[in-house]
């Protein structure tokens, strides 16, 4: 699982079966000091609570679909939690 910031939403009317009703968000993956790393991704919101600006964590690959109500959907990144806090040990370089 990795950290990401929600930076947008995606609306798609025509989509593969199984994606109806799935909320799609644009996320920017972050390193552990919360700096952007790599390009943005489209992720399904498995918790139905994430919104733009929020710090979240997501799971990739097959496990992303496992997070959805129907686990046989074409989803490869899913937001599985909203982050309240990331605490680094004292002495660890951010």
């Amino acid at each position: 699982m990795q950290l990401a910031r929600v930076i947008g939403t995606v609306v798609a009317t025509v989509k593969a079966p199984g994606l109806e009703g799935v909320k799609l968000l644009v996320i920017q993956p972050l390193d552990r000091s919360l700096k952007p790393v790599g390009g943005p991704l489209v992720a399904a919101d498995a918790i139905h609570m994430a919104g733009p600006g929020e710090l979240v964590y997501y799971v990739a690959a097959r496990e992303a679909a496992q997070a959805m109500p129907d686990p046989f959907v074409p989803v490869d990144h899913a937001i599985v939690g909203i982050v309240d806090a990331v605490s680094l040990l004292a002495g660890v370089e951010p």
Partner: protein
Amino acid sequence: MKLGRVVGTVVSTVNSPDLDDRTLLLCDLLDPAGQPGGGYLIAVDTVGAGAGETVLILDEGDSARQVLGAPGAPIRTLVVGIVDTVVEGPAPGGD
């Protein structure tokens, strides 16, 4: 599996139900010499690993779900061991 070092924790109250009451550890990935090789993972703790410890990280979904006994869980990354030592080169006692 990968080598990592526990450098922090992630706290979340709104999450997938399968992640309720699980401890999320922020782990830097290490090379065999114990140096951070770039990158990190958020892993679910299964062994009681603590801050600063070198750990063994499992990053594969089927194995992770088997370890947790949670067949449908959207979890693929676990801390499954605490590393005592890593020796590079031939195994001790080998020739």
